[in-house]
């Protein structure tokens, strides 16, 4: 009587609700669309994977586990991907570790004792993840093509022997001598570490050092414990000798510094059977230490993978692929994404085939003609290259590319947002404050705005499809959803703690985004026309520590995007001297074009806004009351 419901994570609705942390790997695998970085992650090499919130770090790591790969033969999107030649051991960062550390200190434990307790929890969690990964290998039914390490098979007596060996090594009390019994005993050990700490509070401080030293779960070296565990496994399963095991540490930025430091020490392990694949936010004080430690590890290469796209052409292919997958899943028929979303006004340079038609060109020409009529500075620009606007629009070849196509995005936003020269009084604001016109609609613009970020893409596409029925999704609906998503993103930014930044009166991260957005809007929309306006910034040497900290937080949240030099390293080890732009989802709310614009130093921007008193200027959100 019941219908089959094959929907999975692609049908999550809320913009910021989807978090792969809580989703089992097997569920993630059903809808996984691999970005191009996935192939790098499958290499038998150490890897640092860097990306802001929602960029898919957790999903990518979980996709390297036997559990996720179990049904990979059934996934069309995974066909053609390279196999995974190691066993992925997924270790999520427990967000309670930091809180535990603080609590232990407040309860009177010394720093080293508090660290010792939390590190014991961390080690136990890693061992449990290791046992779970072995169990996943044992419970594979049919060997999937993408998992290059074979199913493990034990006789019950062998499994019992292995379980006892691990229990002896790791100080466990086994209730059942099996893999699951060991996992349960490790869970119990986690509980007992907490109970030990609780009991310790009431015992004399004098003998505490000895009791800590005697406790079997405290101060165990992680890699030595893992190596011993692997030795035991290899002794009962000789066919697994020579295999690699990848420790997939997720969201390391959430781990306390003490655990990260211990992990760094673990990276000096010389056991070549272990690979490390670490996911972390784009900016953190010790990111460079992790990358250096990995590069110094013997026996394996190391890769650095970034999941943010400074240049939109890099991420648009993945965006379009994921959007198409969601559409197919929701509509249960092969609808054409380009048909459903329609063409975009903004041109895009992409290796992906982008549909345009005569009406796109006609619409773009209307923007040019309108701006020519309303903006004397643009008119002068046109006349520098031709006698009339029609002659200008008819330019061909290199001239067209250089003078017309290049300025199209600027022309679109100026035409949409700039008040005509003949209708504003001197000194008044030169940009319109009405709701966004539909300039960000259409296939490629929407894909650009969504920044290749799976969380944005899943959230926005599902909201659009929820209301669209079976047909096309109109421009106003797309625009409204972009605005809604941007508002939710802005609301999220208000929840992130931020320092008070001198020169910006309002506290928090949002005023910094507003400062940048309004500054760029002034340059792009209000100032005299230039084909090359300012729309990005460089962190110069004069910038304050507060601004640096705020930029780091904004990068980690995904509100700012790092723009590496062409061919440059995508991983940030320092902010200074680096170039950044606003996330396009936020940029769209300041009337900015969807392309990378010229940069200016952040100190100059802050100083100019401070003098102008613009730092408290209302954003387009406040003006519109959205």
């Amino acid at each position, binding site marked *: *009587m*019941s*219908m*089959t*419901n*094959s*929907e*999975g*994570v692609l*049908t*999550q*609705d*809320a913009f*910021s*609700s*989807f978090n792969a942390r*809580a*989703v*089992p790997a097997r*569920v993630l695998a059903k809808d996984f669309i691999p970005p191009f970085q996935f192939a790098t992650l499958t290499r038998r090499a150490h890897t640092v994977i860097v990306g802001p919130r929602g960029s898919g770090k957790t999903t990518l790591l979980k996709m390297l586990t036997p559990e996720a790969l179990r049904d990979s033969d059934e996934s069309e999107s995974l066909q053609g991907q390279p196999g995974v030649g190691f066993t992925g051991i997924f270790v999520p960062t427990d967000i309670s570790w930091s809180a535990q550390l603080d609590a232990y200190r407040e309860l009177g434990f010394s720093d080293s004792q508090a660290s010792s307790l939390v590190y014991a929890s961390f080690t136990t969690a890693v061992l449990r993840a290791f046992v779970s990964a072995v169990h996943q290998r044992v419970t594979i039914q049919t060997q999937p093509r993408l998992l290059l390490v074979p199913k493990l098979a034990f006789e*019950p*007596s062998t*499994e*019992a022997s292995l379980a006892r060996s691990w229990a002896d090594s790791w100080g466990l009390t*086994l*209730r*059942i*001598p*099996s893999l*699951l*019994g060991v*996992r*349960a005993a490790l869970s119990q050990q986690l509980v007992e570490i907490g109970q030990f700490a609780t009991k310790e509070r009431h015992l004399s401080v004098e003998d505490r050092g000895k009791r800590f030293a005697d406790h079997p779960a405290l101060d165990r070296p992680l890699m030595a414990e893992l190596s011993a565990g692997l030795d035991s496994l290899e002794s009962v399963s000789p066919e697994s000798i020579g295999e690699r095991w990848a420790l997939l540490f997720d969201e390391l930025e959430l781990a306390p510094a003490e655990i990260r430091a211990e992990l760094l020490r673990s990276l000096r392990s010389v056991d070549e059977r272990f690979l490390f694949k670490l996911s972390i936010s784009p900016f953190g004080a010790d990111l460079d230490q992790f990358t250096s430690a990995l590069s110094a590890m013997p026996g394996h290469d190391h890769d650095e993978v970034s999941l943010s796209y400074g240049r939109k052409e890099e991420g648009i292919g993945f965006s379009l692929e994921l959007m198409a997958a969601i559409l197919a899943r929701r509509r249960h028929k092969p609808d054409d994404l380009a048909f459903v979303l329609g063409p975009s006004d903004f041109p895009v340079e992409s290796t992906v085939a982008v549909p345009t038609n005569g009406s796109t060109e006609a619409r773009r020409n209307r923007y040019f003609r309108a701006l020519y009529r309303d903006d004397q500075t643009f008119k002068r620009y046109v006349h520098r290259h031709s006698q009339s606007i029609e002659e200008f629009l008819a330019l061909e070849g290199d001239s067209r590319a250089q003078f017309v196509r290049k300025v199209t995005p600027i022309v679109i936003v100026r035409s949409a947002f700039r008040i005509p020269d003949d209708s504003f009084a001197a000194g008044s604001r030169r940009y319109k404050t009405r709701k966004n016109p539909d300039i960000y609609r259409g296939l490629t613009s929407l894909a650009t705005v969504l920044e290749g970020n799976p969380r944005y893409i899943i959230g926005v596409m599902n909201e659009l499809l929820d209301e669209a029925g079976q047909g096309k999704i109109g421009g106003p609906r797309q625009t409204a959803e972009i605005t809604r998503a941007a508002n939710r993103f802005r609301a999220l930014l208000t929840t992130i703690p931020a320092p008070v930044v001198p020169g910006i009166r309002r506290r928090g991260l949002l005023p910094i985004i507003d400062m940048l957005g309004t500054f760029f809007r002034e340059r792009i929309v209000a100032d005299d026309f230039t084909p090359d306006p300012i729309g990005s910034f460089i962190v110069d040497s004069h910038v304050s520590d507060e601004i640096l900290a705020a930029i780091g937080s904004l990068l980690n949240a995904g509100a700012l995007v790092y723009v590496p030099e062409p061919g440059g390293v995508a991983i940030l080890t320092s902010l200074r001297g680096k170039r950044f732009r606003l996330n396009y989802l936020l940029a769209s709310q300041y009337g900015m074009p969807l392309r990378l614009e010229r940069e200016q130093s952040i100190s100059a921007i802050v100083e100019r806004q401070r003098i102008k008193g613009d730092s408290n200027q209302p954003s387009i959100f406040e003006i519109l009351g959205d």
Partner: protein
Amino acid sequence: MTSHVKIAVISDIHAYTAAQLEPGELRPSFVEVSNPSDLPGQNPFSALKALIDQESLTADFLVCAGDMGDKAHPDAIRYSWERVRALAKQLGDATIVVTSGNHDLDSRYMYNDYDAKATLQGLEEYPFDSGAKNNEYWARNAVVIETEAVRWAVLNSAAYHGYAEEWKHGRISKRTLAYLEELLKSTSQDKLNVLVCHHHVYKIGSVDLGDYSAMEAGSALLQLLESAKYGNWLVIHGHRHWPSVTYAPGSNSSPVVFSAGSLSAVLYDELADKARNQFYILELDTPPQAGRMRGRFKAWDWVSDEGFSPAQARSGLPHDGGFGSTKAGSTLADDIHVAFGSLGDQFAPWSKMVELVPDLLHSTPNDMAVCISRLDTHYGLIVLEHNGRRHQIGRA
């Protein structure tokens, strides 16, 4: 050939609007309708949507056992009804089986003039999509609906709310009981039988909340169902926010009583460490066998800031459970001991035990707890559970 009927169950949403709270009054529910969140960690309906997507859950029926709103607020009731209908659609166009709770009827005339049921009667297709059935529901307080595999009896146990002190408890009147029996006589006798009402038919649970709100004349209703003249029955109700599966007092023909916990109400302090907000899917075998109704259920907990996940210990009902077996928990333990011994291993998957002792599939959570305890104390056998599921049995 045996097939299954799947019934999703929600109850006691108690949605509210912030404006209806007095200063300092605690919120009654996690569903606030004036500015509802769509984050699964903040709105159980959104969490349910995510859970259904993730687990590809489907159901043939969606039971909503009343109290969609709190204190009969019309906006809250309307919001919940829309979400219930959307939920049914998401479950694969499940047929909705809904009844009214005491909080759905404006018994103190806060929002309607002397018409406690005005808001409910203004809802589209409530409780049925047939005008005639709706009139019967409001006039006779009981309706029987026959579907391909299930005969549903829907009882309005809050029918007299709005009169005198009736809001204090549920009721089935003699007249309604007689009418229900007439309906049962005249409808098919070879289907699964499920009765849905809001109030509990007898006192349940170990927590004394000073509760006197059970259905008046509930024992008469149970007597009718226990007679088995009209087949064996499953009763699904809400109201107490106390998840449990019990067998009604009487004989082996007494109905199975599934007391649904609340989907989203903030639980009383007395319940807070014994139950959680829960969502269920029941699976019944069809055609029905002779004897007590047999079935299985799955339960998920909603946890604030997280969303739904498989039910854990002390959640009310466990993630996996059943009902209908006549074997006591201690007997099941003895059977398992024998079955385990026949394997000769130190451990075995729990699924193997279920295969060898099929009654485990249909034992109630209480019988299962007795069974697991006896396995440990009498036979030194440990059952490993993980994420609310039993995985393995063995001994050290």
